[in-house]
């Protein structure tokens, strides 16, 4: 079976249309992100909405972040201790748990958890508002939905994610410490001394800066897919799933680039 010229044209036409749609979607996403950030510098500001979102995103995510952070610390220590015991260097477990959590696992796992919870929440909330014409109603009432809905969510996520990451790091270290004390019989002072002293300024910068970027990704992806909803309640469902998938993948991809950048800088 061979393809005739019309089949080839229609195939390339489909590919071309699909690419155009992807480029346009990326352009729209970029405009939304830029607009959300630019709105921070000019009035009107919606402080109440921002505080409410900080509560929903920050305080609301605390239980899952604390639980996950604790057990990541526990597992990390269990896995590394098994290796270090072979060389009689169990004292180094404090170093490895601290470095792994602060540089990598703390920011990434926290961001993935928050993406699962909040990118979906943002997309479904805004998507429902779109299909019930609440976003159009807001515009009809003279209010900019980007200022009222997008910017507070972006600011709240960017501010809350570093705090959640710091809590996850601390709780993970506590989990690691408990295992080191109970299983390896490591002296508490030794664990904490090594865990704290191993961290350099670059590690703290890396651990603090990554959540800012991840927060921007989670919130803007959630808002973009929420506001782009078409097709009623089915569309809301699709947007919710897509927001979680895209933000999770984007976090992992961004993490690799950021890691390389920070390793180069510090």
């Amino acid at each position, binding site marked *: 079976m061979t393809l005739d010229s019309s089949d080839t044209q229609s195939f390339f036409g489909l590919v071309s249309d699909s690419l155009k749609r992807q480029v346009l979607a990326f352009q729209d996403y970029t405009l939304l992100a830029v607009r959300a950030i630019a709105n921070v510098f000019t009035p*009107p500001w919606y402080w109440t909405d921002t505080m409410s979102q900080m509560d929903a995103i920050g305080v609301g995510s605390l239980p899952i972040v604390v639980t996950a952070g604790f057990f990541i610390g526990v597992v990390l220590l269990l896995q590394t201790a098994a290796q270090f015991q072979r060389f009689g260097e169990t004292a180094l477990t404090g170093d490895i748990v601290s470095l792994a959590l602060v540089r990598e696992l703390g920011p990434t796992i926290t961001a993935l958890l928050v993406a699962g919870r909040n990118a979906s929440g943002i997309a479904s909330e805004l998507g429902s508002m779109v299909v*019930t014409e609440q976003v*159009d*109603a807001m*515009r*009809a*009432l*003279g209010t900019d939905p980007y200022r009222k809905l997008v910017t507070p969510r972006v600011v709240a996520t960017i501010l809350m994610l570093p705090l959640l990451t710091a809590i996850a790091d601390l709780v993970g270290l506590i989990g690691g410490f408990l295992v080191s004390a109970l299983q390896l019989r490591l002296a508490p002072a030794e664990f904490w001394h090594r865990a704290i002293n191993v961290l350099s300024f670059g590690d703290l910068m890396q651990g603090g800066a990554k959540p800012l970027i991840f927060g921007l990704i989670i919130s803007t992806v959630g808002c973009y897919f929420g506001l782009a909803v078409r097709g009623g309640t089915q569309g809301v469902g699709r947007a919710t799933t897509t927001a979680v998938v895209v933000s999770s993948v984007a976090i992992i991809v961004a993490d690799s680039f950021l890691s390389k950048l920070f390793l180069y800088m510090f």
Partner: protein
Amino acid sequence: MCFSDAAGSAPVLFFDLSGAGMSDAPGTKPLVVFRDVHLGFDEGEVLRGISFEIAEGETKILLGESGSGKTLILKLAAGLVRADSGEIMVMGQNIEAMSETQLLEFRRQIGFVFQEGALFDSLSVADNVAFRLHEENVAESEIDERVREALRFVEMEQAIDKFPDELSGGMRRRVSIARALVNKPSIVFYDSPTAGLDPVTSQTIITLIMRLRDTLGVTSTVATHRLQDAFGLANYRFDADSDKVVALPKNGGSSPTHPTNVIVLREGQIYFQDAADTLLKSKDAYLKQFLASAE
């Protein structure tokens, strides 16, 4: 000019701001002008050369089958959707030449009632109606007074603390009307205000639109597929003195002070544009079929 409350008791004078917003004297200048407006999507052109005018104080009813472009015309007039070509002037301002920021400011002068009400479901009825006032940093005491007055006008003051999910479809439309008129707009756009409602509730909504037209002189554009809405607005008026809806004289046309005219859309174009009475007497085959099928 004043608002008369539901029970017909002493008039509330809060909206009585002479020269600002609502007016009871019809003017001759057009408040809305569409000139050769085209709009299309991926599926093809939806509006093909729409041209019409709405005079100050006039009520224009957009009739047509589903998908004929009624809602789009309202959204174009409010600047919620951009036309591909053509000119749209509303209250002397060229909508198509305005930026989104300018449009936000402009929309504060108009009212828009969405098909399902589009109330903010996380806000109470009071906060929904007060939304625009909060945005304009109006004093809380004034907000409360104006919200209660607007809700009293639509006979929904008792629901002030309720949330949208506690309201019936008709109640939501009434709250939506209260939200649209709280800022004293010169013109209100109603997108299928009676869609999905039972006949009694539909009549309540139409009476409200009539009251706004006849007591406050609000220019209205009503998109609907219900002929009863069109002929109700064209053949009756609200008498503020008796607080009742009364029939206009037969063959006398619509209200002389607040005329009501009809536009029938067909496949993205204006097929008929005149008084409701003329539509009823038309011998045109499509219009006769449309009237028969819509009844």
